[in-house]
């Protein structure tokens, strides 16, 4: 680990929350335009976070309640360190895809711990829904990851990105897996029709119901980082890590970074468009959906990869 890598990681850890908040602001603007109204300015989420951190009071139920948002932010930052972002391979090593699959669950569980300590029954219902939804989309997602790992014959995300640079992007080689991964991405982002955990009208925003002020500011940062992290996981798996230009020159690195921003936002843009026009499923319907067609398609994709890679 030389100075360059440390600087890249530090830069990314500061840049990703800013980018995530900007994406969330763009989401509100695009949703407003879909609804035929003006909408807030695109820097609105920064103002929201500033306001939340400047609240003069703090309500706390116990120390477990305080730890919840910290757990969520730390979990998602730790996951972010292993995903190649912006054309830079971060801390990737042999077998890190499996580590990522585990780390992605930590932030949700931490929030569940904190929300359970609040004592509000709405929080309990929201936490139960979020865990059920996670169980639902993990199955097709893991099958898709298995098919990708089999195709490229490695479990390291950095090597997958490197191999896509030679043989072409994954979305052209494994289109079915990419489709299943995009369906699971809709649940990971928490956009309709899969935003059951944070359903404002049904469970009063679920786990976030008792959080206010500075805790809520941390939860906004959590959502911002999570959006960028999940989008860039998809980009690394199927869109070649957005490495198109030669990364050894400065202009190449900058252009790769810009292309990565554009591609991650494109995945989020598809989610925003679906979010603007759809309603929310019931949690039973969401579970049944994820374990039906996406799982079947993922199994077909896995079988296809096993056949192809046996040659």
């Amino acid at each position, binding site marked *: 680990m030389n100075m360059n890598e440390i600087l890249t990681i530090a830069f990314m850890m500061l840049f990703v929350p800013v980018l995530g908040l900007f994406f969330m602001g763009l989401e509100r603007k695009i949703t407003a335009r879909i609804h035929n109204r003006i909408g807030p300015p695109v820097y609105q989420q920064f103002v*929201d976070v500033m*306001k939340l951190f400047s*609240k003069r*009071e703090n309500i706390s139920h116990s*120390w477990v309640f305080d730890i919840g948002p910290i757990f969520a932010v730390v979990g998602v930052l730790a996951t972010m360190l292993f995903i190649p972002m912006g054309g830079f391979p971060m801390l990737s090593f042999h077998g890190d895809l499996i580590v990522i699959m585990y780390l992605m669950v930590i932030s949700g569980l931490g929030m569940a711990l904190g929300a359970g300590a609040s004592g509000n029954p709405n929080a309990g219902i929201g936490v139960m829904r979020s865990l059920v939804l996670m169980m639902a989309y993990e199955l097709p997602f893991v099958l898709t990851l298995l098919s990708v790992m089999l195709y490229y014959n490695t479990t390291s995300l950095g090597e997958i990105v490197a191999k896509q640079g030679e043989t072409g992007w994954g979305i052209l080689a494994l289109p079915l897996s990419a489709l299943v991964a995009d369906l699971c991405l809709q649940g990971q982002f928490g956009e309709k029709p899969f935003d059951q955990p944070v359903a404002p009208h049904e469970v009063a925003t679920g786990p976030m119901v008792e959080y206010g002020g500075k805790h809520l500011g941390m939860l906004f940062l959590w959502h911002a980082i999570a959006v960028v992290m999940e989008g860039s996981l998809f980009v690394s798996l199927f869109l070649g890590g957005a490495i198109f230009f030669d990364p050894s020159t400065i202009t190449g690195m900058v252009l790769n970074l810009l292309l990565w921003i554009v591609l991650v936002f494109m995945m989020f843009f598809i989610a925003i468009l679906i979010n603007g026009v759809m309603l929310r499923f019931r949690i039973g319907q969401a579970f049944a959906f994820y374990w039906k067609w996406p799982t079947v398609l993922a199994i077909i994709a896995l079988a296809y990869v096993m056949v192809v890679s046996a040659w």
Partner: protein
Amino acid sequence: MVDENNTNEQATDINAPADNPVMVEYVQQQGDADMIKFGAAARWATKKSLWMVHFCTGCGGIEMSPLMTSRYDMERFGMHSMVTPRQSDILLITGYVNIKTLKRIIRTYDQMLDPKYVIAFGSCPVNGGPYWDSHVTINHLDKYIPVDLYIAGCMPRPQAITRAFTALMDMIQEGKADGYLRYKKNLEKYRANQEKLMRKWW
């Protein structure tokens, strides 16, 4: 750790001098020490993103529907509605208030975090309106919770409400919207008034 509802024991005067030990404890409890330096920036951020509680208390709630949706969009000011009082800054009292609703309004107002603002719609919170001689509606809302801004009318149209929101934003920027500070300062008097009406809380 701060206790649950910080408005009971430590009702202190925020204008007390800084070497007063009570004031020091208040500041440390609230986590205010760094934010005092950033006063103007914090006020700008507060005014640009006010969140209201989605609790339409009376007949003026009908005017909230065009205000919150595409017709007279309120989200362009950064405002949108939140479902719990813990996450919101503004409480809108839309119309008349009877004793049953007043009990719930006081509980909601107590749960909101500082800084918090109250806007009262219509002529009923001002002096009773058309229900001034009814045996269940209260006539002056200001005796029970502090009100920052009144909007006249029965019911005020969304254009008037939008004008009130921009007026409240100006008041916040200048530091004049101090309802929550008045509540903390005169807490005994407000509670005495509230206790005269409610025989039992729950």
